């Protein structure tokens, strides 16, 4: 029982971590919380659903298609909602309002076109289980863990070691100087949204598989936001640790106490962490010496 709960917790936490990494990437470069990110994940979930059902694609193909479409949507999100604000050097409050507007718009577009009904993914892994040391573990959970881990590791390697990754980190620290060093900021910001979109696609598919696709599912990503804040906004390792921690603790609470107080717990946990560590577990980098 404990083993099973932990695995489920890690699986959910892995998806939280994916979303939190996406959030954090965007936060670190534009310094605002992109609330529209949840809607991109929601749209991704629908893309995954229709790829599997209406177009009858096999799962791997549907996942890739969803990632690409979500990346495109995320890119358009930046170009339409934020780039003009960026050029006018607007304060980050404006970005947040624009993000909320985008998010409400996208949700309602889905209501108006696809409808409010929940779309259940075909039962790909629903019944499939594996026996692991006496506990039955859902295959879906294992897949979620595998894909989240793979995606996060690839992303980490890219950000840490590629020249573009170095440029992203440089621009997130000081975008003016990065431009002076030859970075085309427009390109780098576009790329960050594409990367965040790829992660949104993966999380959309796994959230759909686990909880179905529905117009307000973007609000689950509040949990991703909570994870990112617990880990320290802007810090990628923080986002991963925050996501896993939240996922595992939530599963334990649901199983051993009551599932209804899960969300009460999550937000209490957030507030408690912030009370004692205002910049999260992995707050921002070393201060510059003057």
């Amino acid at each position, binding site marked *: 029982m404990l083993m099973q709960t932990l695995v489920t917790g890690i699986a959910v936490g892995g998806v939280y971590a994916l979303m939190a990494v996406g959030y954090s990437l965007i936060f670190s470069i534009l310094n605002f919380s992109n609330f529209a990110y949840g809607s991109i994940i929601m749209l991704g979930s629908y893309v995954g659903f229709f790829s599997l059902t209406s177009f009858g694609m096999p799962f791997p193909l549907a996942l890739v298609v969803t990632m690409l479409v979500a990346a495109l949507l995320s890119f358009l999100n930046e170009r339409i909602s934020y780039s003009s604000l960026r050029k006018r050097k607007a304060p980050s409050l404006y970005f947040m309002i624009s993000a909320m507007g985008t998010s409400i718009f996208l949700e309602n577009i889905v209501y108006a076109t696809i409808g409010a009904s929940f779309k259940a993914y075909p039962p790909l892994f629903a019944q499939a289980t594996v026996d692991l040391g006496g506990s039955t573990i859902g295959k879906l959970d294992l897949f979620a863990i595998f894909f989240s881990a793979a995606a996060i590791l690839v992303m980490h390697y890219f950000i840490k070691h590629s020249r573009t990754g170095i440029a992203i980190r440089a621009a997130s620290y000081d975008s003016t100087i990065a431009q002076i*060093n030859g970075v085309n900021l427009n390109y780098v910001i576009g790329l960050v949204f594409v990367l965040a979109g790829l992660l949104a696609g993966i999380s959309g598919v796994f959230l759909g598989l686990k909880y179905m696709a529905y117009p307000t599912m973007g609000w689950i990503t509040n949990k991703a936001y909570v994870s990112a804040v617990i880990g320290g906004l802007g810090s990628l390792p923080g986002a991963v640790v925050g996501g896993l921690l939240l996922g595992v603790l939530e599963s334990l609470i649901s199983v051993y106490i009551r599932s209804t107080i899960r969300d009460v717990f999550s937000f209490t946990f957030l507030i408690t962490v912030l009370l004692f560590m205002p910049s999260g577990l992995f707050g921002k980098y*070393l201060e510059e010496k003057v």
Partner: protein
Amino acid sequence: MTETEQFDLRIEGLNVYYGRIHALNDVSMTVPEGQIVTLVGANGAGKSTLLMTLAGVLKAKSGSLTFGGQPLPDAPHRVLAGGVSLVPERRRLYANLTVRENLMMGAHLQTKMSVIREDMERMMNLFPIIRERVKQYAGTLSGGEQQMVAVARGLMSRPKLLLMDEPSLGLAPLIVRQVFETISGLKEQGITVLLAEQNAMNSLEIADYAYVLETGRVALEGTGRQLLEDERVKEAYLGIQKKSVEQ
């Protein structure tokens, strides 16, 4: 551009505003290829504004900026591609990146890794301290070390013209001397330098030509030696009091 065309920087009638504040007022100056030109002025005189405008970060209201006969682009990354590199005030290293990564960023437009490695080796010979620090985060270095890295980062793009904003700011006198020796050395490598400094004494000594900026205007110009001898410069920037003869 013809082969004989010189890579001179020409600034003509430049006006820059910060909101309503007229930060640069009808500034004209020339930085001839291969020379060190110094910009002396107090805090707020407009030195940084001028360099940031040249680098494409700030927009000019009017006036013309040309480098080697071509107008300077208005986007920072294209200015750099044109061979003009800025070492910013207060160094502004990426504290979250290692020294090596900071240098890599200086060479961001260079596509050949072999060239980058070669240049990095040159920088480590120029500033031996960098060799010991390459793997450290830039935020952990001392002020003087950070300045070396900032200059090296500015040189990694192999610029024709290096703009330097207050490289001596906050450094110990011994390190300041080292920095100015380095700048003189750049001239020998054929790099043109436009140097903005509050430290008038040292910067005028190495300057071929110099301008004095006062509240956004060019107040005075001349060779470095001329300005060092000038009574107004002595009094205002070198701290030498004129003896009052007449009562």
